[in-house]
């Protein structure tokens, strides 16, 4: 009822009726091939420099990055980071297979439980699907193995990211998402929630002065695994 009224006013204002079939076909074609706009030159770099741009961009936005040679070193690096920051050693860890496979038992002081985050959780560990060098942005699509609350409720968010999952521009990250989640039957690739995260939570509402840790995490710490090869297509 309202729907028809709104659509009718739009068509009347544009001085036409419903679109002719050839125009509709053209628009459907544009949606299907989703053309890219302009991709800024700043991220068109050789791999090592692209990864360096990512790290620099994260740090510019008050995030921190620790580069590690392999996954086996992750629990130790996390334990040391928490000790340096004087943070508790209770962790809520996302149920992603990559996180569950880490050799946590080598650091018995870390007490962890897996699942979504609750308001009482202080430190969380989340796996990143991909990242964008252009602005130091993490791509965190929701999934049973990547609950959204882990990005929001903890005070300190630790992210596990493989260097091979860093791309230059947002458009390349969308392509990774399309390739990973394309369901042959419905062609629906979009998860319920995709968060693009650039640095820790902040607000400048009090006298236009930047303060970190508004509602989301106060600290964003990225553990970057140097598996430097071209980006792969897995989740």
């Amino acid at each position, binding site marked *: 009822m*309202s729907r028809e009224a*709104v659509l009718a006013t739009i068509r009347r204002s544009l001085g036409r009726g419903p679109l002719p079939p050839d125009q509709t076909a053209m628009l459907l074609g544009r949606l299907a091939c989703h053309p890219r706009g302009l991709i800024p030159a700043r991220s068109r770099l050789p791999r090592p420099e692209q990864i360096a741009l990512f790290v620099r961009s994260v740090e510019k936005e008050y995030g921190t990055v620790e580069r590690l040679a392999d996954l086996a070193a992750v629990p130790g690096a996390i334990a040391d980071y928490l000790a340096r920051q004087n943070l508790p050693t209770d962790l809520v860890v996302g149920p992603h297979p990559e996180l569950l496979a880490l050799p946590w038992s080598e650091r018995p002081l870390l007490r962890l439980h897996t699942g979504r985050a609750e*308001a009482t959780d202080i430190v969380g560990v989340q796996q990143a699907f991909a990242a964008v060098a252009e602005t130091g942005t993490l791509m965190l699509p929701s999934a049973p193995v990547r609950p959204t609350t882990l990005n*929001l409720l903890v005070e300190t968010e630790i992210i596990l990211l493989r260097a091979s999952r860093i791309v230059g521009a947002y458009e390349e990250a969308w392509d990774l998402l399309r390739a990973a989640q394309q369901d042959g039957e419905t062609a629906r690739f979009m998860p319920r929630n995709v968060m693009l995260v650039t640095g820790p939570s902040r607000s400048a509402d009090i*006298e*236009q002065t930047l303060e970190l840790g508004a509602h989301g995490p106060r600290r964003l710490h990225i553990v970057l695994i140097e598996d430097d090869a071209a980006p792969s297509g897995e989740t």
Partner: protein
Amino acid sequence: MLPNSPAFKKNASAALADAGLQRALERTKPHFQHRRAAAVAALPEFEELREIGREIKDHTLENLDFYLETWAENVAKAGGEVHWCATAADAREAVLGICRGVGAKVVTKGKSMISEEIGINDFLEANGITPVETDLGEYIIQLGHEPPSHIIAPAFHLNREDWEARFRAAHRDLPADRVFHERHDILTEARDELRQRFLAADVGITGANFLIAETGSSVIVTNEGNGDLTQTLPKVHIVLASIEKMLPTLEDASVLLRLLARSATGQDFSVYTTFSTGPRRPGDLDGPEQYHVVLLDNGRSAMLGTEFQDMLRCIRCSACMNHCPVFGVVGGHAYGWVYPGPMGAVLTPALIGVDKAGHLPNASTFCGRCESVCPMKIPLPGMMRHWREREFERHLGPPFVRRNLALWAWLARRPGIYRLATRAAALALGLAGRRHGRFRRLPLAGGWTAGRDLPAPEGETFFSRYRRQGRSGR
């Protein structure tokens, strides 16, 4: 929110005399302008992106019916529901219906200008539902029972002592003698207070910066993360969005996102850019069980095909007001409704009528800075001029202004008399101002000379000098 725009002149005078507001404006203006300039300078492709962004929005508006229908189909496929609303009243009823459907008592809210436009807070409260603003700036103005004074910095007009006073008055369960040593202490108190509200809410309402036809998604952009908590924790997520938020694809959104944060806060990218598509999926450990979009028209579809269509490209970045010399001295409340500054001066008459908002397009010096910084290249001064014309045609201006405009038009159409009159005026003013070279006061122009001097003419008009010197300019 009831429009107070007819009182613009009174509001503006009060704003000029408000010392606290003037302090806030002095602090805010350079902050926004410098940060934007630095962000734009760091991206050499910015100008080209503006052009592409404009093309994307124009293309979308020309085919808006197609994209809205495609988007709505994709929302349904993802398990969400679209509520088409022609008017603000329809939208209020839709929101209330959803809230009642789940027996909601507390509703948390992310920042949304549409929610201000439809006045949802007062309406929910009148119906026994408590709305809680969770954006820090929106929260403090809700505590003060006042509207936002800026579209992205709603509480920029408040100073630190205002925050402390309002927190002491509102958070009575905390020790009365607590000390706020730094701004961070204010932030921490708000974080703790609002965390409890997030967890208690039955429904979360957010706005939308964009809607994506390709995927049926809504997009919000925040720095605090409040919008994400608002839409993740409660059982129900309601998105308030107007029809012109539409974009075809994720690639199109990527172009506009490169423009939005740089134009708004001067960030390269906001902290949280979140794409939401339907409710919780099988196996998900969190997320809302229901996803609704209340889609509002409220007069926008009637702007298509008119000289005001370009206004529908607006992405609400606030660059126009951050660079406006008028907004820069009177602030946002003077404009009397939801949208202040140059974008408000164009949009408000379209949404509430030029009879109520006629002062706003007149409150411009036509300096053109708003258009020059607008990421969507909206010809704001040109459209303000259109509103002035409509106001004049409909005999809405005050008789004094109309009489003088008519006199001016009569004179301007008679070059001989015009030159004679200007020659006489230049001569008289030139003679009278010979000694000081400027006037501190002029009869009938006391308001104008109160803030500045009028330089005295040299006794000759442009035309006579032009004739004397010829085209060579010697």
